[in-house]
């Protein structure tokens, strides 16, 4: 009740919450693809790489214009992203290195331009390098329209090319073999990511944008195994953190809005990592305990034997990953299993070979073949 009143009475809260929620939603959705394509750090890279774009715009126009600066930033951002991809494609240099190089060189170039501008007389360039970087708490009504329009376009494109986006992000070679050009689709995805970053920079600032691009997607990933659900959830998490962060910022004095949204979304990520079903750390720990309770030397040995017999050779060796003594899906603890195997090795039942694979010994085979459990345990090799 109190909260609703708060929203009705407080214009700033309303605007900022709405803006942050919309932006959180859009960047959560678009960012999901950045997360899956391992381009999560593009947010920070583009925000630095934008500087020369802004500086060149200023040199050309000699005046501060947010719109033109954003255009300059967008061009520089796209160029930087293109370069990162080009370096990665044409050399053996990995994305992270390419990204680090491009962002720092672009920024260095921007700095060179800034000091050049400092020498131009009569140019009021104060705060040029911070000019397009907004703060969440100073969102304007027109920012909201911008976010809404561009966000709607981005979401529309995602819905339109959903199938292609999914396929290319998952398996680009296969996409190419079907005639769906992974190059073009990747370019489209990256451009959309850059566009949403630039919008975010101008409305809520660098750090919040960097977080909003990655965190909602990561949190959403923990709760679902379906891309569509993940994308929707990421949008919801982004929006929720926008609203909750804004409310917190508006109820505590001197609580900056952007950072408090970052903290909320980070808490959502931490919560998701710990508590989500299937993947969560908590459930994993519980499952591991059960696993340890149920696993024993006998069923490990029998399993290894069954595996080997699949190859019609009791001495056939297997990697530790192949050994699954009980059927619970996902409940695997390699370290624990390794300990059990080591104990078996001490007893002389199994042997670790040169390739780090495990195989039965003669004694082990004799032991298993006499074991009463073996006949009952029909191992399902599909599992």
């Amino acid at each position, binding site marked *: 009740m109190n909260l609703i009143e708060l929203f009705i009475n407080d214009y700033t809260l309303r605007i900022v919450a709405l803006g942050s929620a919309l932006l959180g939603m859009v960047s959560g959705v678009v960012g999901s693809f950045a997360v*899956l394509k391992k381009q999560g750090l593009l947010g920070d890279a583009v925000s630095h790489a934008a500087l020369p774009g802004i500086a060149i715009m200023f040199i050309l126009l000699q005046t501060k214009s947010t719109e033109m600066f954003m255009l300059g930033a967008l061009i520089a951002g796209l160029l930087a992203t293109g370069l990162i991809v080009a370096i990665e494609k044409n050399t053996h240099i990995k994305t992270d290195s390419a990204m680090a190089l491009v962002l720092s060189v672009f920024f260095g170039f921007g700095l060179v331009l800034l000091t050049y501008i400092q020498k131009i007389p009569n140019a009021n360039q104060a705060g040029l390098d911070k000019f397009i970087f907004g703060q969440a708490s100073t969102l304007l009504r027109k920012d909201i329209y911008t976010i809404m329009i561009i966000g709607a376009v981005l979401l529309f494109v995602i819905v*339109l*090319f959903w*199938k*292609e986006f*999914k*396929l290319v*992000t*998952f*398996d680009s*070679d*296969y*996409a*190419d*073999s*079907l*005639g*769906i050009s992974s190059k073009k689709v990747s370019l489209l995805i990256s451009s959309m990511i850059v566009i949403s970053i630039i919008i975010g920079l101008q409305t809520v600032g660098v750090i919040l944008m960097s977080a909003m691009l990655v965190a909602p997607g990561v949190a959403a*990933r923990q709760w*679902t*195994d*379906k*891309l569509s*659900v*993940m994308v929707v959830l990421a949008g919801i998490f982004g929006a929720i953190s926008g609203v909750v962060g804004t409310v917190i910022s508006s109820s505590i004095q001197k609580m900056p809005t952007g950072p408090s949204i970052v903290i909320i979304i980070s808490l959502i990520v931490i919560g998701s990592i710990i508590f989500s079903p*299937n993947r969560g750390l908590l459930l994993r720990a519980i499952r591991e305990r059960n696993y340890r309770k149920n696993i024993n030397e006998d069923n490990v040995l029998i399993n290894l034997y069954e595996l080997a017999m*699949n*190859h019609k050779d009791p001495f056939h060796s297997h990697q530790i990953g*192949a050994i699954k003594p009980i059927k619970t*899906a*996902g409940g695997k603890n390699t370290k624990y299993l390794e300990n059990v195997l080591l104990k078996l090795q001490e007893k002389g039942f199994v042997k670790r070979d040169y390739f780090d694979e495990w195989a039965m010994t003669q004694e082990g085979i004799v032991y298993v073949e006499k074991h009463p459990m073996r006949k009952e345990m029909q191992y399902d*090799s*599909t*599992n």
Partner: protein
Amino acid sequence: MTKSNNYVVEVEDMTVAYNVKPVLWDIDLKVPKGVLMAIVGPNGAGKSTMLKAMLDLIKPISGSVLFNGQSYYKQRKRIGFVPQRGSVDWDFPTTVLDVVLMGRYGHVGWIKRTTAKDKSYAMDALKKVSMEDFAKRQISQLSGGQQQRVFIARALVQDADIYFMDEPFQGVDAKTERAVIEILKELRTLGKTVLVVHHDLQTVKEYFDYVTLLNTQLIASGPVEEVFTEENLRKAYRSTGKILKG
């Protein structure tokens, strides 16, 4: 030159290189219709590269590939592909059915959605690989063999005439291996052509009727009983210049 009609795949003079290093050297290969062909050779012999170059995923330095006498682009819908299992991130948030449906994307075309019919194709394919119970499963929960079956099912729904499979037996359990080979044989009886990159020499004779031996160069290609000889194998697996003299 030989008329195209007899062969579904014709590779001529194909050379592929990464940087300075030739990976494939002047390959000439003809694949007759309706065969089940293994492509074998030692590690680094360029087996997967050849497959990818045939599918235009890698640009060769020279050479051409024809399918039924036409270019790859004209024949694309008749070609199915099973990439190496390790080439994708299996933690990707998607279900088994979704992955199999991807095989229909080429037929569906840009922007358009898959239909209920596509879905029933996908379910049929899953049944073929005995994975129908896993349709709703997340792909990261699958074992290696199951992942492979999903990939095979995906290629099956492409409803192609020529199939390219990159190491479909790599790291799978014996049961999957048997299931996959049954499917391959069934494809052959339907008159389809299947090319499989294979690394287990012991099973070549049992599984395949045609074989291509590769070691950067094409060593030999033809019916298993003719080509899969000790002499050819020695050629393929020995890596000195002496083999030139046979």
